[in-house]
């Protein structure tokens, strides 16, 4: 009955305390620090200008737009990765390779037999749907290994990680198809007349869909139940294997959307480079969001915010003229600082330190208890 004895608190203090305890605090704080840092270092970082692209259409440009635009694929993948992590207590490391496959399928359908056709051989929607089916099929393959053969997720997805880019090259006979129709580029760049890049809308659409799904279906509840204790969830009438399987299929769907954006950006594909190491960033987004990588409870908003933090960090580093090859080193330092700050052990240590530095306050809290 500790709560009853707490002195009544009014005003902003409980709100702040609640916020600090909230999972979303860590990515939010990281984002705020980055924003403040940029404000001090160079206020023009946040300038957004309305210009014209080569076709004379109005486009917005600026660092913020770049961040929102480039983070889109990562956000979409973070959604799927959060569900996979929550349900199976492991991560899918094959998403980069799966994007290569899905992208290759899209181009294969659009190009038909020729490598560089004058016009597209099929409607984009058909190509996208076929890519969805293919990506979900590969997701199902991962899901079966994880859920029914009970193989550790990272190991199970290692198979597709190894083979994925080779399969992608094989689908197109190792050719590099290029689509010249500007209509295909709309998904990764700008739709004429709309100054905001299309990937931003696609990412927002995915967010809306997943929030509606989590709100109105039992998917969120079931994945968390399975992740926390799959045995007891089975006793409660949930089929844990199927829930795990389902999260991998959903991951496949996210992969297909991300692949559409990726191939549309350049209207072509490079099998060994496309979406390279994106799986690591997606997992990082989940971890930065404060979600346990061992599964269980998750916070989707925090994961999405985590993805934006990563992109914000990358763009900030570019802004400070860090060479793209050396970028990972700086990123690693920031990541370690963030993760260490959010580690439960570190928080306890800080609290103890705080108690020693401010003994009066600690005593007051003790008395109150």
């Amino acid at each position, binding site marked *: 009955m500790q709560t009853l004895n707490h002195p009544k608190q009014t005003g902003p203090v409980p709100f702040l305390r609640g916020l600090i305890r909230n999972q979303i605090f860590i990515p939010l704080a990281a984002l705020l620090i980055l924003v403040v840092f940029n404000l001090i270092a160079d206020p023009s970082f946040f300038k957004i200008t309305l210009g014209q692209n080569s076709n004379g259409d109005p486009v917005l440009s600026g660092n913020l737009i770049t961040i929102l635009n480039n983070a889109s694929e990562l956000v979409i993948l973070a959604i799927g990765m959060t569900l996979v992590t929550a349900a199976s207590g492991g*991560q899918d490391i094959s998403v980069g390779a799966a994007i290569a496959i899905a992208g290759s399928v899209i181009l294969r359908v659009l190009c038909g037999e020729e490598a560089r056709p004058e016009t597209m051989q099929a409607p984009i929607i058909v190509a996208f749907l076929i890519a969805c089916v293919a990506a979900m099929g590969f997701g199902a393959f991962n899901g079966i*290994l994880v859920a029914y*053969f*009970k*193989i*550790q997720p*990272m*190991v*199970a997805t*290692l*198979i*597709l*990680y*190894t*083979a994925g*880019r*080779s*399969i992608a*090259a*094989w689908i197109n006979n*190792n050719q590099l198809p290029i689509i010249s129709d500007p209509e295909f580029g709309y998904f990764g760049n700008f739709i004429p007349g709309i100054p905001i890049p299309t990937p931003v809308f696609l990412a927002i659409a995915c967010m809306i869909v997943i929030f509606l799904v989590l709100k109105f279906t039992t998917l969120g509840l079931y994945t968390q139940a399975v992740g926390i204790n799959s045995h007891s969830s089975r006793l409660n009438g949930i089929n844990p294997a199927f829930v795990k399987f389902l999260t991998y299929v959903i991951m496949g769907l996210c992969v297909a959307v991300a692949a559409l954006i990726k191939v549309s950006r350049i209207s072509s594909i490079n099998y060994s480079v496309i979406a390279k190491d994106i799986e*690591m960033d997606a*997992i*990082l987004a989940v*971890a930065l969001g404060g979600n*346990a*990588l*061992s599964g269980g409870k998750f916070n989707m908003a925090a994961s999405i915010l985590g993805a934006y933090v990563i992109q914000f960090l990358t763009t900030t580093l570019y802004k400070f003229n860090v*060479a793209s*090859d*050396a*970028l*990972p*080193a*700086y*990123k*690693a*330092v920031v*990541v*370690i600082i963030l*993760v*260490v700050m959010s*580690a*439960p*052990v*570190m928080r306890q240590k800080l609290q103890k330190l705080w108690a020693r530095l401010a003994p009066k306050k600690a005593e007051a809290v003790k008395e109150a208890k």
Partner: protein
Amino acid sequence: MAPNIGLKNGRLARQGGISDTNLLLIITITVFLVMYACAVIFLGAGFRKPQAFFNILNDNAALIILACGMSVVMITGGIDISVGTLTALVCMSCAVHLDYNGGSVLTAMALAVAIGMAFGLVQGYLVAYLEIQPFIVTLAGMFFAKGMTTIVNSTQFNVEHEAFQALKGTRIYVPGMGSINKLGKYVPAYVEPGVIVALLVVLLLFVLLRWGKLGRGFYAVGGNAASANMLGINVRRTRFLAHLLCSTLAGIGGFVYFLHVGSGSPSHASGAEMNAIASSIIGGTMLSGGVGNVVGTFFGVLSLSTIKNIVSSLGLDEAWWTNITVAAMICLFLVIQSLVLLRKNKSKQ
């Protein structure tokens, strides 16, 4: 997961038949022997010479060392994905040290081990004492090593240091093995010095894991950390030492790799961490911890590269076939392991 994973070698295991570790080891060795025998019988030429086998060792000495370290971490239930880029960092640092900074081979060796140990200390501390997930810690380590490699030097270059070249060219001839070449000359089979290091590492780790107190601690912590704690094992220290060992081995492996290729490049050993994990898995180490063996890992590396050689000698040169076959092989091994363990657990109940 399988409930019977645990401290199950030795006497305890004999009561319930064969232990998981040994069962998976036997499967691995059998598959490797069958595969190699088939290659010798059906593909002949390339595989019949003893040197063909020793070339597999020469090419993969570094991978063997990396994979052994990986196995140790996996046995404790962790993972280390930084070893691949760490190898690249060690190569580049040693190359710069030798050619630009006028270092000697000995100091280069010390540098390699020191870099590995530094990574191990930091990663081990973060994983064991701050209880951060090993995947994230070593992911950051991977990024850091990747970035540092290009900061040290961003382009590939070959080392021209004389003493190093002499060491690189050293051949250790295997007594009693050899083949007669086209000119009718007898060519003795040889291995590179790195192979000796790799075999020593395998042997030492095997002894450590089998009879060492620390080694048994690795299995206990990976099998069940809570009960290991009750047995009086210092779980945090054990985890810390596992990561330290793995990264130090990555440093040594990095130098062996450097000795084999003789150059520094940011793209060296890319994907080596995944190859190391795959070899460990094929060798019967389970990512869930508590089960595994470095001898199995050794055969895992050999199997992986034998299948690659088989694919290329079948004439399937197109790049994708190798990867697809390797993936199929990992898949096959995983399913076998999973089925064997599932059946075993069922028959126990």
